[in-house]
């Protein structure tokens, strides 16, 4: 497979996963606001700022908007073309990547991607959004699921598919980590609320942001408890949005690409990924609290960045050819 094609498949898949996660975070948090009695500006800021941090760029936000109101934040994360992580920008980037490799993906995948882009870019999208964000965000998530289903059933499960899965699981692990990190920020300024009703609602929102509310309750039955949630979202081996699960599949697909047997490594990407996987497999929530949740998650994020870099260098990167030098060499021959 051409390196450029692998790169595009990887990013296409990553951007779609990113758009889906942002849609879910926004959806859950908009609904969450409905449960609060009244929110002054300070409380609103408290509510939205961590979300901006988790999914985008805080500095950029304040350059474009004056205050973190619900409307501004959702606009920034949904339609803002200047924000490279907005849903629209992600879908645009996913489609651009798909366009450069149209011949490589199935017609069904392309049509799905193209239609959702046409929808998002149309005035119709705004009106769906205005009439009810719930419907709108649902549509984005549905689209992502449709795309994944079409990928499963119309696209050969060969090398290209493996690169798509690598992109997807890397992005998912990262976003689950960031969603958990939101909670850390919410807790920080008002320690007195810990354990209160609001807190339970907010932790519930974290679970919902990962589609994990029901899965969590099935496992623990008990009420919402912060460390159990952290344990679930980081270490659960079966839930498909947990970090451990994502890294396990990431590891598996990396090995399928190289053909290297499981438990060993043939390149840097497999090495760093395998090391993270064993930390997650043999770790538990005590590590997280001993280390500090925020610090733990920041470290995790750093390691995911490292894996992404290693994947790029192992498979997609060829030392850039210096055209001038190349021309000179070829002219001498």
């Amino acid at each position, binding site marked *: 497979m051409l390196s450029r094609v692998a790169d595009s498949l990887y990013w296409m898949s990553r951007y779609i996963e990113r758009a889906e996660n942002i849609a879910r975070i926004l959806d859950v948090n908009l609904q969450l606001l409905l449960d609060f009695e009244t929110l002054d500006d300070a409380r609103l800021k408290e509510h939205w700022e961590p979300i901006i941090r988790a999914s985008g760029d805080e500095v950029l936000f304040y350059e474009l908007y004056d205050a973190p109101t619900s409307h501004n934040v959702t606009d920034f994360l949904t339609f803002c073309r200047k924000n490279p992580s907005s849903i629209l920008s992600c879908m645009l980037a996913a489609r651009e990547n798909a366009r450069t490799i149209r011949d490589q993906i199935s017609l069904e995948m*392309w049509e799905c991607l193209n239609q959702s882009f046409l929808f998002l870019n149309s005035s119709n999208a705004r009106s769906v959004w205005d009439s009810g964000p719930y419907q709108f965000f649902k549509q984005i998530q549905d689209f992502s699921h449709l795309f994944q289903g079409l990928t499963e059933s119309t696209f050969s499960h060969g*090398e290209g598919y493996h690169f798509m899965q690598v992109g997807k699981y890397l992005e998912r692990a990262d976003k689950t980590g960031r969603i958990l990190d939101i909670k850390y920020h919410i807790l920080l300024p008002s320690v007195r609320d810990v354990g209160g009703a609001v807190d339970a609602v907010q932790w519930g929102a974290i679970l919902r942001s990962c589609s994990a509310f029901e899965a969590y309750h099935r496992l623990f039955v008990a009420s919402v408890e912060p460390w159990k949630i952290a344990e679930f979202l980081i270490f659960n081996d079966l839930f498909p949005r947990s970090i451990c699960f994502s890294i396990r599949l990431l590891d598996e697909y990396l090995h399928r690409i190289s053909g290297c047997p499981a438990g060993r490594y043939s390149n840097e990407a497999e090495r760093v990924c395998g090391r993270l996987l064993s930390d997650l497999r043999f770790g538990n929530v005590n590590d997280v609290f001993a280390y500090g949740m925020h610090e733990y998650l920041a470290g995790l994020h750093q390691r995911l960045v490292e894996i992404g870099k290693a994947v790029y260098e192992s498979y997609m990167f060829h030392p850039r050819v210096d055209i001038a030098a190349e*021309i*000179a060499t*070829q002219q001498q*021959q």
Partner: protein
Amino acid sequence: MFFENYHVGDFFDEMFLADGSVRPHYAAILERMRELSLEDFEGKRQAVDLSFLSQGITFTVYDESGSTERIFPFDLMPRIIPNREWIHLERGLVQRLQALNAFLQDIYSEQRILKEGIIPARYVLSGKHFRREMMGVSVPNDIYIHICGTDLIRDGDGNYLVLEDNGRCPSGVSYLLENRQAMKRAFPNFFPMAGVRPVENYCEELLRMMQYIAPNGKEQPVCVLLTPGHFNSAYFEHCFLARQMGIEIVQGPDLVVRDFKVYMRTTHGLQQVDVIYRRIDDDFLDPSVFNPDSLLGVPGLMNAIRAGNVALANAIGTGIADDKLIYAYVPDMIRFYLSEEPILGQVETLFASEEKQLSHILANLENLVVKSANEAGGYGMLIGPAASREEIERFRVMIKAEPRNFIAQPPISLSRHPTFCEGDFEGRHIDLRPYIICGQNTSIIPGGLTRVALRKGSLVVNSSQGGGSKDTWVLYGDE
């Protein structure tokens, strides 16, 4: 009810005779169209447009507010060619391509045709697309033009004339194939009874040709399609063809030349490439030989070609056969190389570079079509009868400054075809581009891209200037 007020006018109409009666090969479709109500028709039209849009069968238009993607307007009324006409066309086109390939082989080696004075040497040697670098280079099986998209028109009497040969990188074949799909979806019940020859095996033929020209007859050669990238307006087509053939689509930076061989960069290292279907012009192919600023090309590609380690379709240097001065000599080529008389006619051509003809051209600019010798796509053209004073004067200055670069032709009144325009059918001018593949044998896809000038009275069929297209049906029989 459609066709109540249809007028043939003073033109050759593809569907109706001058007295208004329908030509026999159009009788069935006329009946079918008459059954349709305006709502039915509009419904079919919108369904087709929507399916083009959702499949992304678009081209990009750039304007001040950025870029927009548009679909190539498609007209549901098909153009129909009866079998006997097609057989004639086929023979004529094969003959022409044989002569052009013989010509290219000759001028890049012995240059017999120049030595014997059939074509003045200065016309070939001064051609913008004559590539000295190809002198003495042998290409597999002596084929230079593997894919040819000849532009044909019909004059007032219905004679097919060759307008241009397009032996460089002709585009548009994907529209032909997609148009056929669209028609089948729009008329699922009518189509099977219409007796239309299928076009679907084009990509198979294309791949077979590529495998045939592999260097040293290599078995299972690695074939790729070289594209300038997704900003190119024909990128949809590049993807379409590569996908249908199951070959890689590569860009310049994906390829690298080492030891006179071409390789592509893959996730598992470098892999050798044997045959390249290139959709990049000569100028941009190899920055170490041609345009040094090109980022689209592959440095060293020419070295690999010279060493015989890679085959290109089409070969480098075919553009000289597209030169509009050389076009005028194609009938002579046919006589010289094949000892045959040309089967297809072409448009009479005056050279601005010949003193006598130049004065005639300059005196009659308002009655002639003037074309730049090396442009394609409807650029650099003056249609005298429709041009303003200023345009004519502008061309007068340009022609005087660079006579080698211009030719003039009498205006041909293109044939017209019923085309749906706001509620009913009206006559619009059309042309025809069949696609010819030359490998082990020469085959022509039965059909072609019929382009139609949608603007009333317009003679320009190019998509960038308000053109649309039609499905083209070649029938098994004559009715």
